[in-house]
């Protein structure tokens, strides 16, 4: 289903910046109807990345169309598998926020959406991919079961 391909790290960071903006809007609006619609959009944006990898997302299409042509070739590339895992974590958090928002538990909404804000902020601004850093640890946990 997911093949390991090489990505331009700047594209991954751009995608994180898009996620950050959408998640920020969701948190500022809160668990209102508008806020929940934005959170649902956030979750949908994560879905292709969680299934196939960041290269299949709407954010990647934006990057390829508008930004990539203005940049020089990447000096290094990275595997799509850890950022795909990170997209799965993002999707899980967005879904958690959405579900808590729908059942009327604002705390859960803010924790889920807030995690997406922090993780995508660190990725967009510093290039740190939280999901990638814990990838080996996660594999160990899964294998231990």
């Amino acid at each position, binding site marked *: 289903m997911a093949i390991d391909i090489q990505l331009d790290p700047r594209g991954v960071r751009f995608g994180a910046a898009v996620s950050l903006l959408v998640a920020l809007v969701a948190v500022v609006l809160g668990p209102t109807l508008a806020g929940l619609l934005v959170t649902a959009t956030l979750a949908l944006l994560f879905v292709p990345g969680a299934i196939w990898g960041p290269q299949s997302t709407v954010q990647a299409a934006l990057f390829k169309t508008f930004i990539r042509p203005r940049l020089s070739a990447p000096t290094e590339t990275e595997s799509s598998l850890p950022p795909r895992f990170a997209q799965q974590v993002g999707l899980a958090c967005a879904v958690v926020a959405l579900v808590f928002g729908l059942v009327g538990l604002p705390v859960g909404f803010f924790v889920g959406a807030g995690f997406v804000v922090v993780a995508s902020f660190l990725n967009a601004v510093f290039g740190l991919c939280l999901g990638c850093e814990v*990838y080996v640890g996660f594999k160990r946990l899964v294998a231990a079961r």
Partner: protein
Amino acid sequence: MLERVLIIVAVLAVASLAYLWWQRRQGKVTHIDDAEVFPAAGAGIELAARATFIQFSTPTCARCPGTRRLLHQVADGFPGVGHAEVDAIERLDLADRFNVVRTPTILVVDGAGYVRARMSGPPSREDAIAALDEVPPVDYSI
């Protein structure tokens, strides 16, 4: 609304500080007191006489190739120092045993096979050379 914006700014400021603190510790050398033996033969690794950098990597790790190049260079510059790589996903047993949670993680193993130091995250050239200080060269008179 304003309150939420202020909370977000505060949370992101804390996250930034946490990141900067974490970034400074990247690749720093940790001394190991109760040295364990690394099963080099079982991992298909031949140990160098003084020290071997054993780097845990994954094929999917973005910063591992750069660390591999750096450690190769450093190893070439010192007699009796080598470099070897272990796939942490293929050898989850070794990752478990030596508590590798992220890649690259580098164990510094002496000539007898004892793990004397470790570095988590990509080290700088200075870090890698400092790690070798944990395994001083053996002096031979004849």
